[in-house]
């Protein structure tokens, strides 16, 4: 794994999405430079997960462009976007419940190898990286929720993404577990160069990890800057951080 530099640049240009009468995302534009870690924060219902779903191809934007290293993603299927280098986790974990942890992760690895043994070997590495090495033969129902979040991350990582999107993977973790997860992402980012976009309410993790923070409210970007700048922004304080624990 060491030495493989796999980073992609992400750009959103005027992306909007409406659900019935609700403008979930409106005219969102931002850039994530290759190899950087960006956080996407904002109150519940701000449209964060919807942005992930549009990047990953699960939801088609009403308008706007999404580019991964200048490759337009809008209109492509989720599996094609995955193979183009986007790995994502689901906010509400979606493990394959009748498959072992090893098989769960191997599915991701099969996106770049045909060989099932290679995929299994890689899956073992990913499980070990996330601290699940000893549970490879367990079923997802037999591990704790924080461990299922780790499984979700291991699966996404197994696809060898150039852009890794993490949707609240640290929610519900104890501070020690959060720190371990933060260390894992730092290490992955350093070793592989992967670009990371994370949605997170745990400000302790956001502050520790991010190069830049993007704040979303009612489907609009209201701030985009370094963690320091953003946490001092009066509008951000008023609508979001005022009520949050800054860790």
């Amino acid at each position, binding site marked *: 794994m060491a030495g493989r530099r796999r980073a992609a640049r992400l750009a959103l240009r005027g992306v909007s999405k409406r659900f019935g009468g609700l403008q979930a995302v409106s005219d969102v534009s931002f850039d994530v430079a290759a190899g950087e870690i960006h956080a996407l924060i904002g109150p519940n219902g701000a449209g964060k997960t919807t942005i992930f779903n549009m990047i*990953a191809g*699960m939801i088609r934007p009403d308008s706007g462009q999404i580019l991964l290293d200048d490759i337009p993603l809008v209109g492509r*299927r*989720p*599996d094609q976007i*995955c*193979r183009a280098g986007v790995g*994502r986790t*689901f906010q509400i974990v*979606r*493990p*394959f*419940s*009748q*498959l*072992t942890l090893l*098989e769960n992760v*191997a*599915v*991701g690895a*099969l*996106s770049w190898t*045909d*060989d*099932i043994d290679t*995929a299994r070997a890689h899956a073992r590495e990913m499980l070990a990286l996330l601290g699940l090495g000893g549970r490879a*033969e*367990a*079923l997802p129902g037999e591990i704790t929720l924080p461990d299922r979040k780790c499984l979700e991350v291991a*699966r*996404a990582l*197994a*696809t060898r993404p150039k852009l890794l999107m993490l949707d609240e993977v640290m929610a519900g973790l104890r501070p020690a577990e959060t720190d371990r997860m933060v260390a894992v992402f730092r290490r992955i980012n350093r070793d592989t160069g992967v670009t990371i976009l994370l949605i997170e309410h745990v400000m302790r993790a956001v502050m520790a990890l991010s190069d830049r923070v993007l704040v979303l409210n009612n489907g609009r970007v209201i701030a985009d800057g370094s963690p320091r700048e953003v946490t001092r922004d009066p509008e951000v304080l008023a609508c979001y951080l005022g009520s949050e624990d800054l860790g």
Partner: protein
Amino acid sequence: MRRILEGASPRARVLLAALGALLLAAPFLVDSYVLSVLIIVLFFAYVGQAWNLMLGFAGQLSLGHALFVGIGAYASAALFVHFHLPPWAGVFAAVALAVLAGSVIGYLGFRFSIRGAYFALLTIAFAEFTGIAVAHVDWLGGSGGLFLPVSNRAHDDLANLRGSPTMFYYVILTLTAGALALCSWLLNSRLGLYWKAIREDQEAAEALGVPLFRCKMIAVAISSGLSGIGGVWYAFYYNNLFPETTFGTSHSIELILATVVGGVGTLFGPILGAFVLTPLGEVMTALTEGIGIDGVKPFFWGLAVAAIVLFRPSGLWPWLYRLLALGNGTRGGPR
């Protein structure tokens, strides 16, 4: 073979070898009645395996599998009757047509996101419609049925599938063993893992790079093709085909019941289920014959099936697997 036995205990290996040996020797050990029951058992095990590949592995419920069996049966029988085309050649046409039908249904279902029960309804509709259409085609015997000449049964003619029950027994035994080996191989391949991922959560699978449409189409194609081969055997064994009984939904249900009872999504479920259900039906027939009331047998048979499904909802095989401790301790469950 290595793959089938992966994760199996020595005891399971011995049992499988013994079962294989018994099945190979059966025609020399049992009388013609028991052999005729075994033939039916193996036919249901074979078709059940084909259906299981679609639902149990890839998560797509078909309740119209009689369509693929029927197409295979009618295609090979009509070519034999009208053009004297031997079934070993007719089977290619049978498979091609069955796969074509499966692909059309699959395309409609998967392109237009017809899922679950609605997909099942689509398969029923195609099967029933085909049955009605066949009843109006004289070339296929119409509603009166299509009959194969039963004349030269004296000696075994494998190429023309004309011969003794023993010959039919070995043909269907070979098919069943072949389907088991194929499914076992597929299940452990990349495609098999993709199917299982789709079965569990297709959106999560897609996000991990699984091409849903292609994987599902391949599942339907293989499943309908295997069923079509079963149809060829069915036509030449029974020698007569009637549209309603061949394409009817009750036939579709009959074809899948063994797998439901044995365990959907397991390799040995269809085989175990067929070995339980067919003899159970025979015993019930024998027991209820004396009573002389119509419908007594189906009633008790239905009751027995309902009881099995109620008390062993995931099928008999997972339960038997644990009961006999057939695993070797590694996880992954009954196969």
